[in-house]
């Protein structure tokens, strides 16, 4: 059973990691915590739902990854252009308020348009309930796919940040914006790309969990909170940290739910978070910065 518990934790943790990595992209570059990240995931879910209508029944939603990713990327760019851009570097509370306001708007627009009914996409049974057995543990297929996709995206992001010009520009801007700009890095393009990627990741996470997750306006809320916890746990502005944070939270939830009591799972996660922060105030892999 131990192996199964670990598997459960890692598979879910992978998805958490993906959302957290998206969040970290945004925070690392812009110093903004996106409180609406969970709602972007919900948008991804609804987008998947809407587009799935064009797919044959009993197939899988993963073909839709391109349109969903593109759609969310575009959405991220729009949100950035009209809202986020104006609160950059204007202090601590503005982005909080802005993203919370966005969160309210998105949740309730989804409610307004779709109603609060629980919907699901009719995927094939393989993806709904199928699983592979390996070394004595069952690996639900939908969760393996989600984990694999998440892993691919995280690797991609890592490559992107280290090997591409714009990625390096992002890291430079995250490190020290003033210096980066003085070196000729145009902040604007860096910011919008980072935000759009972060948004896109949230949307993709929605698509990845759609085979098992019911779709309704507030579906993203728990994921948003977990993503923020994961990001903080791992250390702000740190992709590897977000990955680590997501996996750790997945494991803590799994271990607590199975070995102790599922009612205590949220408590355990939060307890771990607080304990880590007591000993490492900047997260597991985070660095101290001179901020208020």
């Amino acid at each position, binding site marked *: 059973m131990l192996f199964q518990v670990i598997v459960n934790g890692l598979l879910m943790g992978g998805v958490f990691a993906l959302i957290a990595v998206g969040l970290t992209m945004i925070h690392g570059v812009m110093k903004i915590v996106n409180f609406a990240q969970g709602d972007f995931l919900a948008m991804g879910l609804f987008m998947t739902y809407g587009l799935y209508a064009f797919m044959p029944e009993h197939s899988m939603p993963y073909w839709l990854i391109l349109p969903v990713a593109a759609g969310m990327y575009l959405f991220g760019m729009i949100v950035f252009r009209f809202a986020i851009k104006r609160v950059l570097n204007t202090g601590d509370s503005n982005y909080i308020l802005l993203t919370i306001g966005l969160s309210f708007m998105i949740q309730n627009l989804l409610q307004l348009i779709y109603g*609060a*009914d*629980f919907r699901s996409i009719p995927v094939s049974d393989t993806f709904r309930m199928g699983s592979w057995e390996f070394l004595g543990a069952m690996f639900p297929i939908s969760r393996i796919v989600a984990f694999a996709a998440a892993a691919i995206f995280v690797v991609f992001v890592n490559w992107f940040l280290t090997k591409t010009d714009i990625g390096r520009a992002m890291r430079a801007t995250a490190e020290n914006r003033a210096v980066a700009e003085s070196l000729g890095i145009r902040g604007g393009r860096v910011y919008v790309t980072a935000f759009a990627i972060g948004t896109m990741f949230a949307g993709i996470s929605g698509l990845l969990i759609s085979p098992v997750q*019911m779709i309704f306006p507030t579906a993203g809320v728990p994921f948003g909170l977990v993503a923020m916890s994961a990001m903080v746990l791992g250390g702000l502005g740190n992709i590897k940290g977000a990955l680590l944070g997501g996996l750790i939270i997945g494991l803590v939830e799994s271990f607590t739910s199975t070995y102790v*009591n599922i009612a205590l*799972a949220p408590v355990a996660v939060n307890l771990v978070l607080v304990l880590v922060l007591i000993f490492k105030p900047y997260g597991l892999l985070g660095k101290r910065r001179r901020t208020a």
Partner: protein
Amino acid sequence: MKKKWLISAISVVVVLVLALAACAPATQAPAAPAAPAAPAAPAAPAVPAGGGALEPVRFLVFAMMTGPNAESGRQVQMAAKTAEWYINEVLGGFPSLGGRPIHLNVVDSTSDAAQAPMPFEAALQAEDYSVVIGNSNSSIALTQLPIVEAHQIPMITGAAANIAISQQGSSFSFQPAATSRAFIPTQLDFLEYYSGHLGIPVKELRLGLIFADDAWGTDNANNTRQQVKERGLNLVFDQSYNVAAFTDATPLITALMAADVDVLLPSSYPADLSLIFTAMGALNFNPLVVGGGAAMTWPSLYADLGDAVNGLTSVDSWVSDQTGAREHEGWQVMNDWYEEQFGEFIPGQAGPTMFSIMLAYSAIERIGSDDPIAIRDELRVIDETTVDWFKIPNGVGDFDNVTGLNTGARAVMMQWQNGRPTAVFPPEYAASPLLNPDTMKPFE
């Protein structure tokens, strides 16, 4: 310079006006202005000169239309539409009031008990209502109690399961359907019946209880524990999960498997059940499932699981084909209309809403008055011998004179067969035989 000053000034004015503007809407309500019916006098019907407008009798239907519980609110809304159609088109409104029509105003309570008093008070301020129907959520219903006490309007909650509603000394609340306290004995009686058919002594079954951590789930769980103890059953797993944080059921199922659970007793909502059932499928865990109500009986379960839903059982206060409903002609008319309009069976929140409305309707018809206090007095007096709509809920239909609780209400067991829930136990309420979930054929 000038422009900025102007903008600032206008903004200030707008802010102040917004704040003061809250004054306006309630007294100039979007609907017709408050009917000036004096409390004691029966409403004088306008002379119906072929198309002359008769003042409608208003019921306030208070339901959760937004938030996590909005599916139940939607069911309530459909129920209200059905009842309104039936009363106005088939029964011709209220004959005892000169044919006045009924108007059922469905108001969103949100799913939050701290918010709910606001729309409730807003609605009660804007119109004169004779009766309040709902809310199905116990926490919200409890906040309504002092408000209906102040406004002196009777409130009938068809589906709120917490018995505290009838214990707070409210003289204006009525619960016609079974509460959790009645659910669990039926659920466990059924378990014995079921296991008997499967050839396993019920006391040898390893029971697993999982429940949503809200008031309803917790109420069910408390009652389950108590009953299990009394009956000497074997409860090996007992955990609640946080509804808001439930993102993955595989750890829970892993734990259930480790505890070797034979029978799963879930008290859960649609999203939770979706995660639970898919995880069970993935981990190859196939216990007997005897649900605690709510989402186990809602159309969304079929929408989610498809034909895999057949064979699942659950307790509830209502199944669309229970004896009381089947044998009531008027109800069957409403039933057919509902199914035609909405394309689905009457689920657990809609049924009780509909018969609550009909109970209030009957009370009004009997006294020929729309005065809330007179209606409340009449509700206390009626029972299933005087009002045959009261035969629809299972058990003996009668409101306690003091608490308004229908102590004779009983729960019923349903099983999903052919994509619909059907009543299977106890025999006096059943509509179909219980099927063996493995073969989908009646037990021999």
